[in-house]
């Protein structure tokens, strides 16, 4: 659609959780190259299905490997361009009102007993952050104790919101999100090894062009990396 | 006792109503040309419109007073109202329409019996029908019945007979008179049909352009020029009160005597059939056109009623002459100008009033 309508713009489909980063990148990119970026934010799955249905895009940012593989299997993205562009960490958060709880690498073992009530995570069925949260639970054998206390949210943002609202006593979200919120307090950052690597993947469309190449170059540049970092993401 | 007294003002567009009334307990006929404000008056009385100014008092209870800011809602006024347009509930059968109000009548206060009413209004075969399935006249009868079954303290009817054939009219009118007498329910009946009204009552309330033109006994009203004019077009009528004296079965006649006069007047019996027994008081109406004047008694004529009297007043309207003749009671007679000249009629002259017993209409 938009990609081929106006020559000097590219269309980026990006997972909703990177809204801020991509918006800032788009601004910088325009300043630098004069090329406008049309952003389309939704969940990674919805974006994948839109692409599958013929949506015109130039670059796709997914929060999960599965959806990237899904598109790749249908040859809708350029396999060579697939790369992980940023990482994240999972953290445990509590409402800001909760000033008592502190967790260290020792007490974390009894994590389920450290709080009462429910814990909000992304829905493990389809939200990547939820899947990571579940992996962390199972690798620490908290599953049984927490099974009935999980409140699955339709995305990470909602999981965070539940903690902000005090509807739950605990939440497991991305550190990038937790850092932005003034209503929650991060009480623990989970070990990298507790779950699959938390990575955002990007890929270009099959037929590359000048504009897309410029964008790929910009993404690898320092300016882009700084933006990711500023927003709480990890760059390797 | 006044059944109703009111002074009501109301403006609607370029029409304005300003009426002062006192109604007594009987039946009052409300009469006036199209657009006179008859329906508007009914709405004010029943509580569907609010007067801009004025008061309304029924049975000495103040229902409306714009100064004191009193305005009793319609449902508390206990006024039965037959709408000009019927307004039957379309989702209910005739039976349910009729019985609608009975829920709001306290036990034992129901004055009119359902079965009796259904019989009288010939609604037996219609009870399970819905208003949409009724003919115009059938609807009108149901509307009358519905209002009667609400056991009202006062009954207002707006053109209740307009779609009824003469047979049904003749049947319902005596019934209304009976109800008025038996239960002492005052009634206001709007009609553009003066003969119909007069067969119900002699008490008339004349409206024109939103103002009271006159109010009182019909015979008193027609003596006044301006009211005479209004009523003339609608059909003038003599209404007389008689007592049933005897039945002459062989000839099919009833012998009636007037209270005031000592004259014997024969009246056709057929009309009076069940309703009148010897000693009953009945109302009889007679059109001025149906009375002839002669200077002497005439034998060998099919006109059986011949009453001597004196001309009290001669009213000349266009080419028509009305003579008010005192034959013991007052009779209005209409004759042509030619007859007036030929017979040299003047005020004070002795004449005979001739009318066929056939021309007499009884209304109980």
């Amino acid at each position, binding site marked *: 659609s938009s990609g081929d309508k106006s020559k000097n713009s590219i269309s980026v489909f990006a997972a909703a959780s990177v809204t801020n980063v991509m918006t800032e990148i788009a601004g910088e990119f325009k300043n630098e190259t004069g090329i406008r970026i049309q952003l389309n934010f939704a969940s990674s799955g919805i974006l994948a299905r839109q692409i599958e249905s013929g949506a015109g895009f130039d670059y796709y940012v997914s929060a999960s490997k599965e959806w990237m593989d899904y598109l790749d299997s249908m040859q809708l993205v350029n396999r060579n361009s697939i790369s992980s562009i940023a990482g994240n960490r999972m953290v445990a958060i509590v409402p800001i009102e909760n000033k008592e709880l502190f967790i260290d690498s020792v007490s974390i073992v009894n994590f389920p007993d450290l709080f009462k009530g429910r814990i909000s995570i992304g829905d493990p069925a389809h939200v990547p952050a939820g899947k990571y949260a579940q992996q962390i639970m199972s690798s620490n054998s908290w599953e049984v104790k927490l099974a009935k206390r999980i409140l699955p949210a339709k995305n990470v943002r909602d999981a965070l919101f539940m903690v902000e609202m005090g509807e739950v006593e605990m939440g497991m979200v991305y550190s990038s999100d937790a850092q932005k919120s003034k209503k929650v307090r991060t009480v623990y950052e989970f070990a990298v090894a507790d779950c699959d690597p938390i990575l955002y993947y990007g890929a270009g469309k099959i037929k590359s062009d000048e504009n897309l190449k410029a964008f790929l170059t910009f993404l690898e540049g320092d300016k882009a990396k700084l933006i990711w970092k500023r927003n709480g993401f990890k760059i390797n | 006792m006044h059944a109703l007294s009111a002074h009501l003002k109301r403006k609607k567009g370029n029409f304005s109503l300003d009426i002062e009334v006192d109604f007594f307990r009987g039946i009052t006929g409300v009469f006036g040309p199209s657009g006179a404000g008859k329906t508007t008056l009914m709405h004010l009385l029943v509580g569907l419109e609010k007067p801009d100014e004025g008061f309304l008092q029924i049975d000495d209870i103040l229902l409306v007073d714009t100064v004191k800011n009193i305005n009793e809602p319609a449902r508390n006024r206990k006024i039965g109202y037959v709408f000009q347009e019927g307004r039957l509930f379309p989702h209910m059968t005739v039976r349910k329409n009729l019985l609608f109000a009975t829920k709001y009548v306290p036990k034992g206060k129901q004055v009119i019996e359902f079965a009796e009413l259904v019989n009288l209004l010939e609604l037996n075969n219609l009870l399970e029908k819905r208003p949409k399935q009724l003919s115009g006249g059938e609807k009108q009868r149901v509307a009358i019945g519905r*209002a009667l079954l609400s056991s009202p303290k006062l009954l207002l009817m707006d053109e209740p007979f307009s779609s009824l054939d003469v047979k049904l009219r003749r049947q319902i009118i005596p019934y209304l008179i009976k109800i008025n007498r038996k239960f002492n329910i005052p009634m206001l009946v709007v009609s553009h049909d003066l003969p119909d009204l007069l067969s119900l009552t002699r008490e008339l309330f004349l409206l024109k352009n939103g103002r009271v033109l006159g109010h009182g006994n019909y015979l008193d009203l027609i003596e006044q020029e301006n009211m005479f004019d209004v009523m003339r077009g609608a059909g003038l009528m003599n209404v007389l009160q008689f007592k049933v004296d005897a039945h002459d079965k062989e000839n099919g006649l009833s012998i009636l005597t007037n209270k005031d006069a000592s004259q014997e007047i024969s009246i056709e019996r057929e009309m009076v059939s069940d309703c009148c027994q010897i000693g009953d008081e009945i109302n009889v109406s007679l059109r001025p056109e149906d009375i002839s004047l002669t200077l002497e008694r005439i034998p060998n004529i099919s006109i059986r009623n011949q009453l001597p009297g004196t001309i009290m007043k001669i009213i000349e309207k266009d080419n028509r002459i009305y003579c008010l003749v005192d034959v013991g009671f007052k009779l209005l007679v209409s004759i042509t100008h030619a007859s007036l000249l030929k017979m040299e009629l003047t005020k004070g002259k002795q004449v005979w009033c001739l009318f066929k017993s056939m021309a007499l209409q009884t209304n109980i």
Partner: protein
Amino acid sequence: MENWFVFSETEMSAIGLSFKVALWCAILVLPMAILTGWWLARKSFRGKSLIEGFVNLPLVLPPVATGFVLLLLLGSKGLIGQFIYEWFGIRIAFTYYAAVIASMIVSFPLAVRAIRLSIEMVDPGFEEAAKTLGASTFQSFVRVTLPLALPGIISGFVLSFARSLGEFGATIIFAGNISGETQTIPLALFNQIQVPGMESSAFRLLLVAVVFSFLAMSVSEYLVKKLYKRI
């Protein structure tokens, strides 16, 4: 998923829940909508369009926003919810009741509008007639206006039911997406759409929603026809 017509347990529970939530929603919305509809149809007062706007708010707001507002009001730290929690120890959010409430709020303006419209179109002359026969405002409303406005009432009921069947945004925020408790058909559908390869399951659920819709319409159509014929 070998057999296309065997529903998984999750699916079955979503279907049952959806039906229950929708029915309760419609039943509970109806009396309130009738009252509000009548009020808006028959009374005229200052600030009426303010009330109107307020009633219609859930229609204009994206359901997700409505869900957030509900959470802000009725959540256990919410404006009202905190008192409910303190005094009765009841948490509303993320329960079956929350699903019903979310549906109700979202359906309410639709039901009100249908009912109000039909009440407005009933000739007030009939109510007047009822009043001259001794009925109170309430009685004449119940015995005369309401039956005459029946098509609108049924419409209001069906609209609430249908809207509730399709409700997603407000429910997922305020009631959560808890399988067996608050996961109605739309929520289950959403989950399946988010996962590659679950298309067939999603289609089956869609089909159930469609069948529900057709059934609701048929029944209401039949009722309206039957009741209308008598008028």
